[in-house]
C-alpha cells in the first residue's frame, strides 16, 4: 500500500455560535481506501463533509483534501473530487449521454475527452442500447451505477458517496459495490457517508461520529472485536448508548 494521504484532518472544528457541530476531529484516509464515515442523524457528518469538499469554512483546525488546503484551495479541491448522492445527481429528463456530456462540461472536459468518456462509461456499464434513453426510464440500480460513473467523469482522486445504496435489492447493491471496489483498486479514494450499518461492513476502515466527535476509527473487523459485537449495528448501538 502506498502511504499517500487522500484526506488529512487535524483537529478540524466547526462551531455555529455556541454549538459545536464538529468537535476537533482528526483522521487520515489513504489513497485507494474505501473509508466509511458513519454517524447518526445530527452527529455532525454533513457539516464535516461540507468542510472537506470546500462548501463550508472550518472554525478551527487543519485539513487537506487531495493535497489541497480546505481554507485556501477550495476551488482546486472541487476540481479533484467527485460527488454522488442518492437524492441529487442525475437529471432524470436528460438521456444517459446528455447527463455525461453535461457533467463533463461542468468540469471543463474538452469535446474529445467527453466523447471518449461517454464511450467508456456506456460500454463499461453495458448501456449501449440505452445511451439515448432518458435516465428516468432506467431501473434504480442502473441509475446508481451511472451516477457513480458520472461522479468520476473528470477522473477525480476522491469520490464522496452520500448514502449511495439505501433501499436497493441485494443483487443491485452488490453490483454497485463491485464498481466501487474496482475504482478503489485503480487508486481512487472512496469516502462513503451512510447511516446504514450493513453498508459500512463493505468499507476498509470506518469512523463513527457521535455528538461531533469521532468515537471509533478502525476496520469493521477490529471494531467488532473491540466492542465485542456481532455486527456493525451492535457496535453502533453500544457506542451510542455508552
Amino acid at each position, binding site marked *: 500500500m502506498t502511504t499517500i494521504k487522500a484526506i488529512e484532518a487535524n483537529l478540524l472544528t466547526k462551531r455555529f455560535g455556541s454549538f459545536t457541530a464538529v468537535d476537533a476531529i482528526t483522521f487520515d484516509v489513504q489513497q485507494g481506501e474505501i473509508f466509511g464515515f458513519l454517524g*447518526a*442523524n*445530527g452527529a455532525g457528518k454533513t457539516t464535516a463533509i461540507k468542510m472537506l469538499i470546500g462548501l463550508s469554512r472550518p472554525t478551527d483546525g487543519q485539513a487537506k483534501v487531495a493535497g489541497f488546503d480546505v481554507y485556501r484551495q477550495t476551488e482546486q479541491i472541487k476540481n479533484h473530487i467527485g460527488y454522488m448522492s442518492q437524492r441529487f445527481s442525475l437529471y432524470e429528463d436528460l438521456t444517459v449521454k446528455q447527463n455525461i456530456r453535461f457533467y463533463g462540461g461542468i468540469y471543463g472536459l474538452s469535446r474529445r475527452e467527453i466523447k471518449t468518456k461517454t464511450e467508456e462509461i456506456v460500454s463499461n456499464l453495458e448501456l449501449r442500447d440505452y445511451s439515448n434513453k432518458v435516465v428516468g426510464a432506467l431501473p*434504480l440500480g442502473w441509475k446508481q451505477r451511472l451516477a457513480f460513473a458520472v461522479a468520476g467523469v473528470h477522473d477525480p482522486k476522491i469520490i464522496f458517496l452520500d448514502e449511495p445504496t*439505501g*433501499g*436497493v*435489492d*441485494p*443483487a*443491485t447493491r*452488490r453490483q454497485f*459495490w*463491485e464498481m466501487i*471496489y*474496482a475504482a*478503489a*483498486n485503480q487508486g481512487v479514494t472512496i469516502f462513503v457517508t451512510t*447511516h*446504514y*450499518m*450493513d453498508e459500512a*461492513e*463493505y468499507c476498509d476502515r470506518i469512523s463513527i461520529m457521535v455528538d461531533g466527535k469521532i468515537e471509533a476509527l478502525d*476496520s*469493521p*473487523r477490529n471494531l467488532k472485536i473491540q466492542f465485542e459485537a456481532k*455486527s*456493525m*449495528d451492535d457496535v*453502533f*448501538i453500544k457506542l*451510542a*448508548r455508552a
Partner: protein
Amino acid sequence: MSAVKIENISKSFDTVLALAQVSFDVLKGELFGLIGPDGAGKTTMFKILTTLLMPDQGKAYVEGFHTVKDYKKIRRIIGYMPGKFSLYQDLTVEENLNFFATIFNTSIKENYHLIADIYGQLEPFKKRRAGNLSGGMKQKLALSCALIHEPKVLFLDEPTTGVDAVSRAEFWEMLGRLKAKGITIVVSTPYMDEASLCERIALIQTGKILSIDTPEHITNAYHKPLYAVRSDDFFRLMKELRGQHFAERVEPFGEYLHLTTKDQITEHEIHQYIQSQGHSTIELSAIEATIEDVFLDLMQAN
C-alpha cells in the same frame, strides 16, 4: 381465522406490474414481515390492505372484512403508518396525537396505556413541532398516532427506513411489546437483517413472493454448501473465484465473500486453490446462510 388473508392479488400501474398474483395469510397476533427492496410492491400491498387502493384482481380480507366492500369496517380497526413520514409537520407532537385520537373518536387519556412506553419518551418534547423532530422521534410519534385508537391490526410500511441503528433497535423492541398485547403487526422493510426479528416473513421482489415461512425455515432451506472467504486482496480474490467451475455464486458480504459451491469440492481444496493464487492471510469457513443469501439465490432462480 387469519388476521389478514390475501388471495391472488394483482395490481398494475399503467404498464408496470406492481403485484403479480400474491397470496399469503397473516395469523392473529403474529408479527409478520414483508421483506424486499424498493419497488418490490410492498407499499402497493399495504395500500390495498389498508383499503386505500383497489386491486385489479384477487381479494384481500382484514379480520374477515373484504378490503373493497367492507372498507369502512376495516378503517375502524386498523392502524397505518405510511412509508413516508405523514404527520402534520407544523403541528406539535401533542397536537398531532390529539388530532388523531379525536378523529378515531377516542382520547390520549383513554388509550394512554397502549402508547405509554413509546409516547413516554416523546413527552418531554410534546410542545415541539413534528417537523423539528429527529428521525427516530418522528417514527415514535407516527407509531403512537397509529396506535392511539387501539387497532386490531397494525400496518407499518418501512418504519425503520432512514432511521439510525439505535432507533431501529428500539423500534423493534417496541414492536415486540405490542405483539405481546395481542396486536397483529404487518411490517415491511428493505433490510434483510431485520427479517430475523419477525415471526414469519414473506420475501418479495418485483411483485412476486419468493418465499414465505419463518426466518429459520427459510435459511435452513438453503441446502447448497456456503463459505465465507477473505484474503488480503479482496477484489482479486472475488474475480478469481468467479472464474472457477466450482463456484456457483460469489458475492461480497461486507468484509467477507460468500462463496456458494456446486460440484463436489471440499473446504480443503478451495483453500488450496486460493493459496495457489498467491493470496495471504486467507480465512475460509463453512457458514449458515443468511436471509440475504437466500434472497440472492431466489432472485437468481426467478
